[in-house]
């Protein structure tokens, strides 16, 4: 079985490049009710948003959030320097809002509280207007 290893030199260069680019406006995360991606309790998924074949946003749940307590603890990062931050939008029973922004490849923590107590909602991650078909992913069990 294979396992990928990052070439050490390239990885170092990438980290240095990312640091050099520097400008990383990590916007404040709204402390508003929200939710994110679990597939039933105890399991979780990572969402990777692609545009032109490459990654523009990545979202995952923080460890242990798929526990059915109606609180979703998520993480978001933006690996692409395109002039737009990565965004996580939630949709549930009339609630529809951006819950988190990330503007660098470092994970940004955020929290979403379930709106109606059913531990079920939809999440969409995107970057630019062009990279945004309204494709929601279901999540429940958080």
């Amino acid at each position, binding site marked *: 079985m294979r396992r990928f290893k990052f070439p050490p030199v390239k990885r170092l*260069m*990438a980290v240095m*490049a990312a640091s050099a680019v520097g400008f990383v406006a990590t916007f404040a995360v709204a402390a508003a009710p929200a939710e994110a991606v679990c*597939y039933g309790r105890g*399991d979780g998924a990572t*969402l990777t948003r692609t545009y032109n074949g490459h990654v523009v946003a990545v979202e*995952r*749940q923080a460890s242990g959030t798929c526990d059915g307590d109606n609180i979703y603890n998520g993480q978001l990062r933006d690996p692409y320097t395109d002039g737009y931050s990565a965004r996580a939008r939630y949709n549930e029973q009339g609630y529809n809002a951006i819950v988190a922004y990330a503007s660098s490849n470092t994970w940004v923590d955020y929290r979403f509280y379930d709106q109606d107590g059913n531990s079920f909602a939809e999440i969409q991650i995107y970057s630019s207007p062009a990279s945004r078909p309204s*494709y929601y992913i279901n999540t429940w069990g958080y």
Partner: protein
Amino acid sequence: MRTHRSLALVGAAAVLVAGGCSGGASTDREPTVVEESIIDRMAEPSDDSASVEETEAARNEFVSACMAEEDLEYLGPPEAPSMIEWLGLTEEQFGAEYGFGHATTIDVFMVYEAFAAGEFEEYQTALEALPAADREKYVTRERECLQQSYAEFGFPRNGTVVLPNDSPIHEYTMHASEATAGDSRITEVTEAWSACMLEQGYDFADRDEMGLPLQQEAEAFKSAYASQGQALVDAGSTWEALGAADVLDAEQLAELEDLQQRELAVAAAHRQCIDAGHDIESVYSEVYDEHLADAAGS
């Protein structure tokens, strides 16, 4: 039903390199059989013979057939047009009229959000109507079928990929992003773009320096528009009838107009630099594909 590549590829992938990982959703576990097939698929050159639309239509058929094997009717994908498509514009037309789409879309973004949420409503209702056990069965199977589709068709060029948190696949995409960011070709095209922008009076080292402050400023106006406008909507108006001029006060409008003009001017300079051959997006896309294929093929 077509035969899944994964079955034919089991055991074929034996390589490997000693492990290391880079944060994110990294894992120490070995790839599953389907993940091995996805990795093999990533190592193949991009297939340009089919359009994105054709590929995604084929993917949907594939997932639908995969779901049917478990007597499940595929409800998705739950998608709606992007704002650009919804406006009936091409990306170029959108850029000319709305710049980057930050402050300039204030009159339409709430209408679009309502439309997009409405498009999703039918799917959401159908899924939530399923008993919990059936819903879990549905989504679990959907996830399996989507993964198989990544092995069959590759990742969507413009879409959302769903994989387990601990999937080793994340290490490949993470590596490709990092390697591309550090690639000399990206450095070169970014420096050339930056020089081009400077010639037009804008000093930006990269596109984030250009776009993120505009986005951040615009968010404040959009937030004010949404909250102040909601009171009018609650009182019987509609978002379609409410432009920024109907909602924001004179001071806010003056500041907004200034921001919109700045955004459009910067976006015009940016387009000019793309037309002059300093198209970071295209170079990035090409270099990323190369790094992803190299990593997957190693």
